[in-house]
């Protein structure tokens, strides 16, 4: 294994995050703080509790997921798209690195950045609402799995995109609506039965539900099912990436 190459890509990407710290960390934290103020304080004061948990606290896992999902995708997609855009991808392709090592470097860095962001938002949440984590290990596990899975998904988008517009389309038109409709700000059980059934087709529901369970031991769907769905999505992304490198799709002529 070319560990030096993995290390180089990882450090290179982490340095990029350091250069763009406002965009990478501060901006999402400010957005989340605004959500706390608007949804937690303004609207939350009218919705007192959800299944025994104050509304302000209830939305914390969903808000963390919202940022983690969007930033995982943004970090990983930009990480691999930028060398394609500038042409520096030639270096990666001509280096003695395997596709696994390339993915490990880029996705590893993107997932690390998202994980840091998730933990920073969690720390920020403590400033606004009382919070207890029932299963800290499960919470970390859900968070790490989600960071990796959606960084892999972002990597796929970055390879697929051949312009900045395409780079934004999936996060804006698919991911953001799915997150908002995936129980970030409400419990699925609060919806009419028809919408509850429709929501079950939204993969984000399983992520938010599982993550929220690790905080409050309350879930819209079974925790095992949540884990299974994350694992399924993770496997799907890995298979797609394996195909990308096997066929050279949008990477090699």
């Amino acid at each position, binding site marked *: 294994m070319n560990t030096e190459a993995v290390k180089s890509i990882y450090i290179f990407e982490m340095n*990029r995050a350091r250069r763009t710290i406002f965009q990478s960390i501060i901006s999402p934290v400010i957005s989340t703080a605004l959500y706390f103020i608007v949804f937690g304080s303004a609207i939350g004061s009218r919705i007192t509790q959800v299944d025994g948990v104050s509304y302000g606290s209830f939305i914390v896992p969903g808000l963390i997921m919202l940022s983690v999902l969007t930033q995982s995708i943004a970090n990983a997609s930009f990480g691999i798209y930028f060398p394609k855009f*500038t*042409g520096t991808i*030639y270096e990666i392709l001509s*280096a003695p690195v*395997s596709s696994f090592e390339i993915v490990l470097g880029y996705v590893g860095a993107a997932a690390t950045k998202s994980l840091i962001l998730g933990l920073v938002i969690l720390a920020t949440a403590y400033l606004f609402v009382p919070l207890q984590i029932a299963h800290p290990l499960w919470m970390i596990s859900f968070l790490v799995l989600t960071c990796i899975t959606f960084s892999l998904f972002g990597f796929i988008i970055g390879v697929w995109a051949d312009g900045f517009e395409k780079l934004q389309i999936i996060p804006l038109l698919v991911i953001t609506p799915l997150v908002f409709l995936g129980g970030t700000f409400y419990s699925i059980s609060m919806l009419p039965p028809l919408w509850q059934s429709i929501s079950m087709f939204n993969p984000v529901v399983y992520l938010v539900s599982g993550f929220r369970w690790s905080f409050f031991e309350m879930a819209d769907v079974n925790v095992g099912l949540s884990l299974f769905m994350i694992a399924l999505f993770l496997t799907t992304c890995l298979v797609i990436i394996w195909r990308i490198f096997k066929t050279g799709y949008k990477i090699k*002529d």
Partner: protein
Amino acid sequence: MQRNQTNQSVIRIEGLNKTYEPDFEALRKINLTIRRGEIFALLGPNGAGKTTLISIICGITSPTSGRVLINGKNIVRDYRATRSVVGLVPQELTTDAFETVWHTVSFTRGLFGKKPNPRHIEKILRQLTLWAKKDERIMNLSGGMKRRVLIAKALSHEPDILFLDEPTAGVDVELRKDMWDLVRGLQKNGVTIILTTHYIEEAEEMADRIGIINRGELILVEDKKTLMRKLGTKRLYLELQQPLEKIPARLKPYDLKLANDGNCIVYTYDTRAKKTGITALLQDLSESKIKFRDLNTSKSSLEDIFVDLLKENT
């Protein structure tokens, strides 16, 4: 110039084809052997397939068929071993605009599996007169400096084989000369160099062997001196005492050209021919009462050979 080349092959290309969809044949049945330690210049017009060939050898592009061996190892099966000994300076100025010179060069070294070696990076940057710019962001550098950065990146992992794809395109004379010196220095240290260029003078100055590629086909590979000897012609310039309006009918067989407003006769002859025709020409000139006050000869350049070959193959 010291030459460390041997007849041992370092790169062997066998039956290489590359077809882009739907039916553009970028490379056709390329067979080529690059010798260890040589400077090989690949000449060809735009779109001839030079960059495609380099891209395949370096692993950037996949071949449609055929194979490439580096040090006897297949570039697809043994990609780690083969790629780790190759450095590439691409044609385009593709750089990480926001990175510093030091970081981007160190990044490439790591990418090729080498442990950090600040001394080596410093040596390269000093050689390329980039040391003063090491903490500068690449976006702030001039085009020539960016070109140097690309060379520094390609040398960062101490490659045995260096590909220079149009290395002096758009650079000033001073930098071009610097690069030539650098390339010669690398060759002295045993590095095999393959360069593509539009500048014939560059190939003439630097190369040990020359390959000419046109429309995806390698139409000639030859030792530079042999090539120039085999295909080279010489020109005899006769400066006349009195200008001529036209070449007399008697001298027609010599296919003479008038130059310099009729003050000079140019005779082109084949150096390989048993009889060059010079004696007969001088005799006929004398009998035609055409007197000259000076004469000199010049060899045809590689450019002339190149242009002639391309004409033949068009």
